[in-house]
């Protein structure tokens, strides 16, 4: 899978308005600081963008794996904890109020702050006497998300035309214009998130058998749940802050990965990260190259492909269940 990722990355960097050969790409990547046109394109534009896609893809996929394990539900998407909606609100606010003029950091930070706040709110609503009810999280997530969506729509009604276009584009999700600053902005929180989550592989394995079953085997269920939700929020929040709301990656990747490598998280987590990264780069590459002069937002690509694919997965599962 790592090989796949590498291949996809190289192709991703190669494709674009100025076509490059794989050799040029590899040479530019291995020799940073070169000054040929190819080198500049690669290092200044393509590489950071693709790297962003890699990190965001991994973040969304692993967050999806976490959420699906905790909720014992293969239909769960990281957004159910409210983080995507929260992030959207922050970003939309920043765009509508044109805060981005102050600093390129402001938008991602704003989005991240509101994303974390949303998860906090959801968590607070769902927790009674130290116990976090999963159904409570689902319900609170739904409520908060819809209220935030309403808020976003409200902001849209007041925005002027320029802002409107910018906001809608951001909401559709994409990596255009992502440079090295964005890479560092995501790399650090997502890196931390991935490493910490990897340490919790066995706890995730046990949580999948049920909270009581995990508790009886000695897992500190409430603490671990809290930690895992926080990690998923951290990773997804960072991803959303930098690239908008990209649907389906967090939902589909863990699903597919589990079919390929089995249910143990010691395999599922790294495989999800790699596969999610590859998928994201592939989707972004597609988004850039489908229409020759324009760029379609990545979110559109993932939704278009993700929706039917997910339906196919669902139908296959139903058929297997009724046959088995």
């Amino acid at each position: 899978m790592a090989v796949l990722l590498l291949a996809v990355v190289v192709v991703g960097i190669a494709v674009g308005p100025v076509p490059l050969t794989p050799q040029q790409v590899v040479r530019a990547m291995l020799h940073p600081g070169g000054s040929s046109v190819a080198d500049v394109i690669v290092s200044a534009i393509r590489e950071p963008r693709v790297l962003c896609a890699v990190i965001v893809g991994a973040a969304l996929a692993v967050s999806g794996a976490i959420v699906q394990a905790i909720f014992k539900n293969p239909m769960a998407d990281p957004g159910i904890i409210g983080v995507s909606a929260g992030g959207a609100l922050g970003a939309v606010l920043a765009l509508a109020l044109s805060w981005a003029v102050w600093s390129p950091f402001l938008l991602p930070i704003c989005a991240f702050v509101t994303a974390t706040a949303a998860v906090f709110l959801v968590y607070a609503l769902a927790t009674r006497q130290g116990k976090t009810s999963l159904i409570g999280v689902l319900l609170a997530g739904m409520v908060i998300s819809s209220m935030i969506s309403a808020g976003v729509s409200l902001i849209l009604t007041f925005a002027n035309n320029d802002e409107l276009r910018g906001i809608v584009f951001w909401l559709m999700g994409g990596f255009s214009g992502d440079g090295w600053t964005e890479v560092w902005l995501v790399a650090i929180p997502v890196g931390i998130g991935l490493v910490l989550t990897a340490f919790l592989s066995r706890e995730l394995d046990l949580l999948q058998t049920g909270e009581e079953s995990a508790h009886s085997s000695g897992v500190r269920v409430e603490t671990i749940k809290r930690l895992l939700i926080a990690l998923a929020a951290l990773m997804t929040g960072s991803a959303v802050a930098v690239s908008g709301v990209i649907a389906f990656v967090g939902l589909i990747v863990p699903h597919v990965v589990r079919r390929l490598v089995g249910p143990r998280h010691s395999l599922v987590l790294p495989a999800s990260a790699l596969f999610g990264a590859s998928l994201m780069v592939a989707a972004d590459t597609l988004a850039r190259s489908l229409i020759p002069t324009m760029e379609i937002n990545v979110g559109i690509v993932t939704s278009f492909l993700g929706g039917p694919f997910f339906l196919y997965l669902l139908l296959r599962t139903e058929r297997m269940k009724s046959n088995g």
Partner: protein
Amino acid sequence: MAVSDPLVQPMSSRPRMADVELALRVSNVSVPGILRDVSLTVEPGQIVALIGPNGAGKSTILRACAHIHPPSAGTIHLYGRPLRSYGARARARQMGFLPQQTSIDVPYSVRDLVELGAYARATHFTPDEQERILAEVGLTRLADRDVRTLSGGERQRALIGKVLAQDARLLLLDEPVSGLDVAYQWDIMQICKSFVAGRERSVLVTLHDLELVLQYADQAVLIHAGEVCATGHPHDVLTSAELTRVFGARGHTFRDPHTDAWRLSLERIRG
């Protein structure tokens, strides 16, 4: 309930084992609306059966002991220390709990499930140990099968394997045999029997089949409407007036002339 009833002796008049020798000591535990002033003990080497009608509170007692729903009043001591003083892993090293309905929706194999149970284990879980447990629950041949494809009894045995992997001294089993074929019921009770044999380990189990209680348990605790009605040897409890009052049937125990096993017959009492 007369105070002189030999089956319900006040705790103070019974010869008191030192706390550290008891596997489990439940003292005056109450859960609002469900349990009232419940006390019982489990000694090392014993299989203690909780019996009583549905809704009597048997599961609640077990879950309080498993530290899932701590009681609002009373204390529970596990091997001499208060239950709540144990950290999660330390508790799992002493005590394993098998909940009533565990549905596994994940394609774990039996082997996977058993290996997961070793999470909190104090000693390293060797492949030999894993094979030993698989053999003990009779699933060696099915070890690599997806647990979702197993029959009810096989899946239950896999879950018991998971609990056994914890290497705990005390097992709490919530209705481990309900709804299973007779053969599976015997299998699981036999596993309990081997578990406690000679080795200072204990089992606290809720059972509906009173004959299994007679054949396998060392102590029976009759629960009704959240209270302990009778405690003692199964022969005594099952033939007691308390049992008749609770179940509306008089119990008679006898040796089966064909198999020499202990049998229970229940005579329905009207009125």
